[in-house]
């Protein structure tokens, strides 16, 4: 009889608290742990970007244009002679910040809508139908439309990404809230005279928080990719800005002479999103296996 033995995990002591169990599981997942360290490094590098590099991401230098990576410019320079380490660090900063902002805006609005739909039965149908309609708008179309109305810019992209985050978050939050709304202790709380707002705040929102946070973590990578695509298409901040997508788009014409100008920001994006995706998966596995991507 063939025996493909599954690796037997170490016995978990019965008294281990939930938090310690989670930590244990995270520690067991070596890849996720490595990615977590990498994420911390990336975030720190982005926050302290101005102190980490002697170069100004916007200072052009006609003498050192399109230089391949060397000891001075570790990742080389672009077509205007700007240092790519500095530009990529600032780009990561902008990317993370705009991704986070749009997720925050979309996640917040989506949670409110989802919880409202779950709590107030009369609003449910209307709100969720509206979410279905919104869900049918591909994010890229929203981005194109918003850029069309407002003109290109970083805020347009953030706005488009936030809007496209609302419907799925609303669904996740509604599902999580519905699990709580009909519980006996909520009926009891209401009988005690607790107001709607207090109930929502104390019981319902707290119960949704895990699901929404896990979903938002899972979505972070996708949001960054979408944002990069939009700015690559020229719908983001105009050229001199250090937006990773815009940088790739600028470097595209130099592929033959200086491929690193386009490829360096490409790989930076890839790395960040990879880290976020692996961590998102780990977060889902640990906290909330039910949330699907």
């Amino acid at each position, binding site marked *: *009889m063939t025996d493909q033995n599954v690796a*037997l995990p170490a*016995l978990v002591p019965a008294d281990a608290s939930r938090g310690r169990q989670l930590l244990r599981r995270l520690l067991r997942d070596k890849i996720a742990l490595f990615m977590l360290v990498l994420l911390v490094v990336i975030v720190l590098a982005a926050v302290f970007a101005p102190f980490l590099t002697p170069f100004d991401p916007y200072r052009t230098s006609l003498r050192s244009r399109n230089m391949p990576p060397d000891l001075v410019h570790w990742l080389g320079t672009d077509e205007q002679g700007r240092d790519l380490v500095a530009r990529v660090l600032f780009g990561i900063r902008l990317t993370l910040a705009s991704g986070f902002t749009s997720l925050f805006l979309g996640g917040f609005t989506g949670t409110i809508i989802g919880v409202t739909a779950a709590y107030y039965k009369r609003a449910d149908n209307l709100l969720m139908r509206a979410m279905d309609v919104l869900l049918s708008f591909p994010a890229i179309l929203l981005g194109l439309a918003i850029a069309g109305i407002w003109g290109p810019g970083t805020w347009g992209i953030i706005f488009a990404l936030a809007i496209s985050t609302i419907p799925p978050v609303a669904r996740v939050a509604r599902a999580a809230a519905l699990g709580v709304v009909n519980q006996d202790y909520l009926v009891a709380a209401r009988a005690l005279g607790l107001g709607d707002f207090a109930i929502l705040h104390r019981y319902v929102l707290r119960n949704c928080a895990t699901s929404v946070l896990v979903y938002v973590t899972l979505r972070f990578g996708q949001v960054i990719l979408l944002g990069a695509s939009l700015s690559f298409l020229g719908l983001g901040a105009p050229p001199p800005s250090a937006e990773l997508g815009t940088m790739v788009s600028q470097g595209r014409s130099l592929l033959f002479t200086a491929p690193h100008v386009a490829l360096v920001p490409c790989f930076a994006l890839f790395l960040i999103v990879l880290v976020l995706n692996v961590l998102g998966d780990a977060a889902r596995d640990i906290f909330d296996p039910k949330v699907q991507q």
Partner: protein
Amino acid sequence: MNMVDPKPTAAIMAAESAAMASEAAPAEEPLLRVNRLRTSIATERGRMTVVNDVSFEVRAGRTLCIVGESGCGKSITSLSVMRLLPKPQGRIDAGNITLLGRDLTTLTEHQMHAVRGHEVSIVFQEPMTALNPVYTIGDQITEALLAHERCGRHEARSRVIAALREVGIPDPERRIDTFPHELSGGMRQRVVIAMALICRPKLLIADEPTTALDVTVQAQILELFRQLRDSHRMGLMLITHDLGVVAEMADDVMVMYAGRVVESGPVASIFNNPQHPYTIGLLGSLPKITERQGRLSIIPGTVPNLMAPPSGCCFHPRCPLSTERCVADAPPLAVVRGPHRSACWLAPLD
């Protein structure tokens, strides 16, 4: 220790004579002989032996019922015979499973393909999910036929229709092209049975085949099993926790508890003169066959945790007759009288 009752009741006499008749008449080799089977399952917290030292036989045209509470190892025993244990967690650690003279535990996976559905078939508990929702029932039965026999399209179709008719499906010419979701639970179970029997297996394993069905449908399906067993001289291994079903169907009974056989023997002997406190408990909680509440919960306590089985006899924590010896040593499955065996230090109980 009690003396054997000098005046056995009429029922036991009948059972014994029946048992003797069956012992005497066919000296032929049993269809299936399971010898000291031990099966384990890997879990999150370690390997767990779920079937331990189990031996039994099934003869042509006879029915063996395996009885016990959920989690006692009945289903794992049947899956072991089919070599369909969950992969990669399940494993047969020891023992032999001899079907028609061949030890199944030594066959390769590829050789098993020719055995499954051909020499031995199995019918599972849940008819609602046992069929693939995306293919017609005709497709699925034909596939079972063509897996083992060479035949043309038209012949296959007419044989499938005949098989559907045999299991009592009305209008089989039309039903053959329906999808499973268009049929009721009872009809689906009939389809599963037709599929299991299309290649005329020598042995049929039925794992709680009627638990999920209505009482009337249940009786019909059992009747169908009995007819098919008699008309094809098929061996039937019926797994159930419903003693009503046992009374209806069994020739022989094997009672399992915590992965071990605690008592086995001819049905009349076991029903009239149970020789293990667990069996007595089960019989005490026998529901009337018309009330379908098969759960046997009257015995106080629950099935032991197989990760940390109790010392001595597994049943001692729940046994009203438990002695110090029961706590210290596990009793072997020993002959009480003729083919009737019991794994209890106090047997014979009279």
